[in-house]
């Protein structure tokens, strides 16, 4: 009895703390309980690292250009001891004396602008005739000429030219590619060839901001003029890309990062899309007012860490669903939290390809494992052998899927190998001891649980609530504790014991 009161007290305390904080944030700080999809704001965090030599240091970073659709605004920089300022489209940091590893964080906020606003790329296109001499000139003439006929627009000709260059089957493409190094890489060579064929072209480096990324480097792309429109081309795939989600960070001959007084400089970018612009301004406001709940929360972490937490905060939801499915519904799964891990994989692969791959890998593994069981191996060598086979299966699936044109097959590598090996081992033991029926029941239960968890994790509302109101985790905890002491029947037991009260 004393235990029960204690339990009720803890549950009550946790639930009221969680709900209380959430309601406070909603009422007093204006956080919304429902995701409002008004506009998108992207936070881009730039991380610069280098080794300072021990004297005065100066770092200068090119700032992103505002395009027709996107507008970048600098928000903050974390650079202990540095003096910083913006000048001529560059952000500079200075320090009189620095030694050892230096880290500078710089944040930009990107907003989507009104489409009627017609800003073009900053800076004029380079119009200098590119230099091709001797054999190169002949090759360049050849490659630009043979692509020309039948193509009407500049984009079509440019794509054809890029394809020609990347597929590298002709002799002149190979010759030109050999020369790419002198021009600063294949992207620059492609730009020069486009200019040579009379298409206005410019090399740009930037980021696609449509999905959250972590520690990305900038990739080179080419912008060409097709009549009055700018078109973004990906020189690696020879396809046009969407310019409206591409933030140009560097174009033409601008240098991205200059470091004097240091060496080994590295720059990487993390992007985080946020669907609730109102929240962002709310957080900014709350931070200014030093509201404790916000100031000491995950919003004070760097963006890359916030990205990680966006996912981590969903894991308790997965655990909660497991608790409900096992203790209230009575579904059996292989391994208690296996479905959560598999659901995380499904988030990457998407549900249907994920389920298919899982079934294929585990069934192939079971076939192999059934041969191993004749050999009477000891546990650790046996699982290690299964692990080797799992990797062979991964390779086989990847190769076969590429050869047959199913790109989804490549995603098999998202499945954690060790866990898959253990699953196969456990299922084959169940097969031997309890029979195939139990294997189907348990693996079916596992897949069912994983599917539900994956759908919950992908749910917009659940994602919004866990990220905007992490304190609701206390409520989840309270419910988990409550279920932990539940001694009533499980749903499946109502069926199991039904024959006992028949008649």
């Amino acid at each position, binding site marked *: 009895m004393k235990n029960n009161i204690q339990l009720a007290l803890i549950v009550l305390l946790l639930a009221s703390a969680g709900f209380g904080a959430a309601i406070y944030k909603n009422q007093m700080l204006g956080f919304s309980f429902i995701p409002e999809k008004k506009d998108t704001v992207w936070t881009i965090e730039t991380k610069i690292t280098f080794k300072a030599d021990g004297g005065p240091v100066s770092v200068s970073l090119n700032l992103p250009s505002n395009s027709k659709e996107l507008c970048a605004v600098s928000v903050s920089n974390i650079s202990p001891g540095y003096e910083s300022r913006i000048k001529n489209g560059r952000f500079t940091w200075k320090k009189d004396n620095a030694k050892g590893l230096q880290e500078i964080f710089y944040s930009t906020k990107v907003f989507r602008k009104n489409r009627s606003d017609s800003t073009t790329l900053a800076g004029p296109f380079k119009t200098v005739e590119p230099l091709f001499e001797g054999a190169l000139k002949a090759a360049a003439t050849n490659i630009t000429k043979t692509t020309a006929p039948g193509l009407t627009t500049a984009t079509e000709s440019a794509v054809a030219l890029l394809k020609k260059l990347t597929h590298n089957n002709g002799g002149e493409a190979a010759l030109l590619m050999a020369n790419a190094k002198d021009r600063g890489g294949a992207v620059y060579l492609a730009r020069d060839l486009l200019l040579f064929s009379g298409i206005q072209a410019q090399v740009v480096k930037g980021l696609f901001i449509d999905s959250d990324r972590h520690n990305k480097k900038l990739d080179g792309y080419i912008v060409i003029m097709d009549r009055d429109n700018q078109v973004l081309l990906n020189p690696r795939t020879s396809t046009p890309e969407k310019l409206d989600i591409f933030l140009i960070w560097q174009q033409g001959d601008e240098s991205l990062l200059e470091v004097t007084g240091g060496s080994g400089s590295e720059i990487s970018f993390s992007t985080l899309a946020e669907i609730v612009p109102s929240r962002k301004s709310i957080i900014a406001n709350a931070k200014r007012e030093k509201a404790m709940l916000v100031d000491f929360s995950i919003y004070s972490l760097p963006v890359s860490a916030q990205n990680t937490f966006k996912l981590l905060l969903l894991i308790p939801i997965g655990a909660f669903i497991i608790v409900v499915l096992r*203790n209230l519904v*009575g579904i059996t799964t292989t391994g208690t939290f296996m479905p959560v891990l598999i659901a995380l994989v499904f988030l990457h692969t998407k549900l249907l390809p994920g389920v298919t791959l899982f079934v294929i890998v585990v069934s192939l593994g079971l076939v192999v494992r059934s041969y191993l069981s004749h050999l*009477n191996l*000891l*546990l*650790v060598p046996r699982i290690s052998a299964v692990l080797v086979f799992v990797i062979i299966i991964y390779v086989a699936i990847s190769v076969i899927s590429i050869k047959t044109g199913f790109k989804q097959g490549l995603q098999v590598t998202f499945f954690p190998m060790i866990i898959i090996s253990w699953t196969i081992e456990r299922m084959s033991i169940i097969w031997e*001891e*309890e*029979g195939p*029926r139990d294997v189907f029941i348990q693996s079916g239960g596992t897949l069912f649980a994983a599917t539900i968890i994956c759908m919950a994790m992908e749910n917009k509302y659940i994602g919004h609530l866990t990220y905007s109101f992490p304190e609701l985790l206390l409520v989840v905890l309270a419910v988990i504790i409550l279920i932990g*002491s*539940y*001694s*009533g*029947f*499980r749903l499946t*037991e*109502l*069926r*199991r*014991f*039904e*024959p*006992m*009260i028949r008649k």
Partner: protein
Amino acid sequence: MFIASPFRLRKSGIVGMNQRNVVLIAQNNPRRLYPLADNKLKTKELLEKAGIATPSLLGSIHSQAHIRELESFLSHHNAFVMKPAKGSGGKGILVIKKRTGKQFIKSSGSIITSTDIKRHASNTLSGLFSLGGNNDVVMLEEMVNFSDHFDGYSYQGIPDIRIIVYKGFPILAMTRLSTKVSDGKANLHQGAVGVGIDITSGDSLRAIQYGRPVLNHPDTGKDLTGFSVPEWNRFTELASRCYEITGLGYLGVDIVLDAEKGPQILELNARPGLAIQIASGVGLQSRIDRIEKVLETNAGPQFETALERCAFTASEF
């Protein structure tokens, strides 16, 4: 109706999985006592010390080095059983029923040599048959000379009797008979027949397969209503005494019948399952409630011995 109302189940005194874990096991079986049931060597030592009938322990092997002495040790024994102390699901049990010179004859009739036996012992020690693959101990015990009383009741093997003991009181009993569809295994949900046994008389209450009543064994055709355990009082007394030596308040006791020595305890289970309710058609809670009530009203010296508790059970249920 395929679904029962939880209120009706509760009213019939049926215990669900959550209640078994949260109440029966967590409140009656302290975790530190689990090894007394999980480790068959410890169980055996306890039973022998208390003088409770069980197949006697011939010896045990704790390290690979001891396997060398196995051959000379076995020269004194003609029939024996070799098993892992922490085995699961009956894996790794080797039964030798007799020997001719250097050859050992298994219960199945096949012949093996002492090298095979030594390899089996070595595999057992390194955990081939044990839960989680941890190192284990080999137990050598005397072979049970099964009574022919239960012949024809099981498709394969000889049935053992499971008795649930609550705080020392035997409350439910059953036996599981393997069938062809259960592949010789005694798991009810795989199609084995469960026979509920009346805790007072040892006679069969009813027999079920896949949750439905059956009258005859599906393979042997034997009339299951005639199933009856002889000398039932000795079974319940044995089971009841296991409470004192282990201290486990919710205990499953598995007993076999030896032709000469009578009932022998095979093993104990600290987490007995709930299938026994389906087999006997009686809810555990209904019996537990009556015992709790009696313990509350006159908790006294009158239930100190197993005999007293069995006498109470026999009169009460």
